[in-house]
């Protein structure tokens, strides 16, 4: 029999429902896997084995009593530590929130628990979700379970980045210590780490998932989404996470479609757009090849491939690096040492000194950098030149997509410009790090659903992802194209266990 930890969410859920194994057995198996990997991967900030077991016990009791089971009954998952979880420390991977125990549960996590899922722990991430390599966490780097083959049948020892900001999520799913995890995506934070670790992840249309109870980074961009081993699991999880929430003014008041039921890899009659501006100068040859593979696979699934133009693509990253820091500088003003979290009160300090000391001690370097940029671009005299201009360019970027979608149903691009890099390789130069999100950011700025699915391994033996961008509200189109890619890529590679 396959190890329980090798099963997908769907298989676990079905196995529990059919009595092939109990939810408690599942939780126990994953708790053990988590405990075994924690020292090496540092994927979790806190583990909550008892929560996983409690949820499992409830599912087993319900099943024994013949009660109906939820969509995710018996499935333990990892929760990115950006979601507030009642009674369990929530930190956003920042020292400033160390010890903070929310008295409330985020809408998305509540929906997952209501569906019968259990929590294995709170997953590490880039601090306040700011980063692309999980090197900005105050709780240490997450180490990718992937290592480059050393060419002699063994593994290189260099620690690789799991991507970011949802790096704990991607590492844990790839290492098969959780069957699935939640992520959040502001500029690529679900998709880029999914691509780096050979898993799937989807960011839905802005407003599909409630932001209530998720520590905010950039409000107009932040969206929650699932990260899992395959497209079907992503569809199932997203169905559970999404839905109208009156507590979030930007929440979409739309019914949640039954995405998993409607999954279909038959793309006949569909048009796939290939944006010419994404073929950037010096594009990594492996990435270019994988993109070409993707095009061929979608054709094979029956889709017609068309060239489209997204002329403002090159401005997406600079636009993002004005808007996201601007919003973040304001969203993070609440961390001031007054009501919760760290307070650094030097001798004889007044209130304003306390703020400055607390925030200096509590925020990491990247967070400070972005707060300063955000503060600067909003400050008197610069607002129009930076912020207003960026919001205008954002309008143009969104318009590019509207025009492209007049000619196609879904857009295919690479997820990231390269496979995973080594820890420390890019952390010295913030700009170089920012360029990692060059393919994922445009869809974020336009609020569009987008997903990454594994496409294969590059010449260094590391996973690459393919990226699908859909029309607003058309998660189904994205998932279906993702399924078509998944079936043809037949990606079965998994990290060799070294931990």
């Amino acid at each position: 029999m396959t190890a329980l930890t090798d099963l997908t969410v769907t298989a676990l859920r079905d196995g529990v429902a059919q009595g092939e194994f109990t939810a408690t057995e599942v939780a126990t198996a994953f708790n053990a896997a988590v405990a075994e990997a924690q020292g090496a991967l540092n994927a979790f900030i806190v583990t909550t084995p008892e929560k996983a077991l409690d949820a499992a016990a409830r599912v087993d009791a319900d099943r024994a009593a013949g009660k109906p089971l939820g969509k995710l009954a018996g499935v333990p998952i990892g929760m990115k530590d950006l979601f507030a979880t009642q009674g369990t420390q929530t930190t956003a991977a920042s020292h400033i929130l160390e010890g903070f125990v929310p008295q409330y549960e985020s809408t998305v996590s509540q929906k997952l628990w209501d569906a019968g899922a259990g929590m294995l722990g709170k997953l590490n991430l880039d601090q306040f979700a700011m980063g692309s390599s999980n090197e900005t966490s105050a709780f240490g780097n997450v180490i990718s379970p992937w290592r480059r083959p050393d060419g002699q049948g063994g593994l290189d020892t260099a620690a690789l980045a799991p991507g970011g900001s949802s790096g704990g999520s991607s590492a844990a799913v790839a290492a098969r210590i959780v069957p699935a995890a939640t992520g959040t995506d502001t500029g690529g934070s679900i998709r880029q780490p999914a691509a780096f670790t050979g898993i799937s992840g989807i960011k839905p249309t802005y407003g599909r998932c409630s932001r209530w109870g998720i520590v905010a980074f950039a409000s107009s961009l932040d969206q929650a989404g699932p990260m899992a081993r395959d497209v079907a699991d992503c569809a199932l999880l997203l169905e559970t996470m999404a839905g109208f929430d009156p507590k979030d003014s930007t929440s979409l008041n739309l019914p949640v479609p039954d995405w998993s039921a409607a999954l279909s890899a038959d793309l006949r009659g569909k048009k796939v757009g290939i944006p010419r501006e994404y073929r950037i100068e010096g594009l990594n040859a492996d990435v270019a090849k994988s993109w070409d593979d993707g095009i061929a696979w979608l054709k094979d699934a029956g889709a017609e491939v068309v060239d489209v133009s997204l002329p403002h693509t090159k401005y997406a990253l600079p636009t993002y690096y004005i808007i996201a820091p601007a919003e973040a500088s304001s969203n993070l003003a609440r961390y001031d040492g007054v009501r919760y979290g760290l307070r650094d009160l030097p001798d004889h300090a007044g209130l304003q000194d306390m703020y400055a000391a607390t925030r200096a001690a509590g925020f990491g370097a990247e967070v400070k950098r972005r707060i300063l940029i955000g503060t600067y671009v909003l400050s008197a005299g610069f607002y129009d030149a930076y912020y207003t201009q960026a919001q205008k360019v954002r309008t143009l970027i969104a318009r590019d997509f509207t025009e492209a979608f007049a000619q196609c149903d879904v857009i295919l691009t690479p997820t990231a410009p390269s496979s995973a890099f080594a820890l420390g390789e890019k952390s010295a130069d913030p700009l170089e790090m920012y360029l990692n999100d060059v393919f994922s950011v445009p869809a974020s700025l336009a609020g569009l659903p987008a997903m990454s699915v594994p496409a294969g391994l590059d010449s260094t033996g590391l996973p690459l992802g393919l990226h699908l961008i859909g029309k607003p509200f058309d998660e189904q189109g994205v998932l279906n194209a993702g399924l078509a890619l998944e079936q043809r890529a037949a990606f079965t590679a998994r990290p060799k266990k070294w931990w």
Partner: protein
Amino acid sequence: MSSYRIHGATGEWEVVIGLEVHAQITTQAKLFSGSATAFGAEPNTQVSLVDAAMPGMLPVLNGECIRQAVRTGIAINAQINAWSRFDRKNYFYADLPQGYQISQLYHPLVGEGYLDIEADEKAGIPVAKRIGVERIHVEQDAGKLMHDQHPTMSYVDLNRSGVALMEIVSRPDMTSPAEAGAYLSKLRTILRYVGSCDGNMDQGSMRADVNVSVRRPGEPLGTRTETKNVNSVRFVMAAIEHEANRQVDVLEAGGKIVQETRLFDPDTGTTRSMRSKEDAHDYRYFPDPDLLPLVLEAAFIEECRQSLPELPDAKRARYEQALGLSAYNAAVLTADVETARWFERLVALTASKQGKAEADVAKQAANWLTSELFGALNKLGKGLLDSPIGPEAAAELLALVGNATISGSIAKQVLEKMLETGDGAGEIVEREGLKQTTDTGAIEAAADAVLAANADKVEQYKGGKEALFGFFVGQTMKALQGKGNPQLVNQVLKAKLG
């Protein structure tokens, strides 16, 4: 034009005043959260996770706040912006949990409007004047800091944090403390009529930021200062008076006015610079990304318009024209919505009790209310709203006068007894036997007795000293213990004195 001038050592100075009034919108729940707004609760009990700016908390707009602000806008003849949005004003302070106030800078809900202040010679307003209102925007109130509870700490109470405010920004159209006072009073009157703010200045539901500058007549605007959070009409006038004079002194001594935030000290009647807010000038306003544009349907705005009551200017005109009240009475009775309500109830009840038209009893009711009742209440140290007698009881009393059951002078006694005992007018008249007598026999007997006892005066009267008639009336009334019907007493005496 106002003729208000400051006479400085070097000549005359004109004062230019604009007011930013923060008015708490009357709602049950806060602007962006479901916690209560009631005054005087235990600290931090009316605080939600949203108000405390817990991580991941989000604002959701209370529709009633928008409705009340739109109604207010319509009441001051203002442009209602069907498209508006909320911005964040960023600054750090312990009473501001989010690190920003959600307000409206770029696209306020209400645009250009105005209100009229009346001429009031005695108050120093020679002619009526129209004061422009630049905008009304909706925003969050801040929490409260307490400084006197602990030697080294201040205490933060967030009960007010997130309560809805309207900021009503006037044009710099006022040129004297009196005009500013009249504007603020009028605005308060309108808000109370509309019901969008209780106008309770001592509980902080209405407070004004006072912008003052001075200039030589005819010259361009001078640099202004802003005196924050002044919480009574009297204090606003005092703050202007002091601030304008201070500025003149500075300028005449060759100094410059610094654009700054100041604080008014009611104990000394002076203003002083507020250094704690000195560096808070770069607010980094930007649209709140947690909130979408606010778009109002025409039907919503129309409902707001339809739901407005008769407003003070219209009511006042109607009192004068349709009800025939004096300008003074119309002004007094419309100055406060509760007074007007009281009066209108009184008129309606009085008219129906006597089977007369309202217009036929309104004047009598108005005179009685403004002179008799206000006078009596004044002596008791009470206002109309805490009056021991209501319009019902008052109408009963007025009806007794109207149908000649008692005379006007007996009515005064009855009113005093009503206020004392809380009993009804009819009951008191009955119990104390105060009914006016129309028994001609009794009146004749009394008159005969008076004339007999004053034979000498009767002689003088007949000799031409007609002024003595009043004396006979008075004596007869006295003999009748004031209860004689005055007309009958007159008739009887006239007949007997021939």
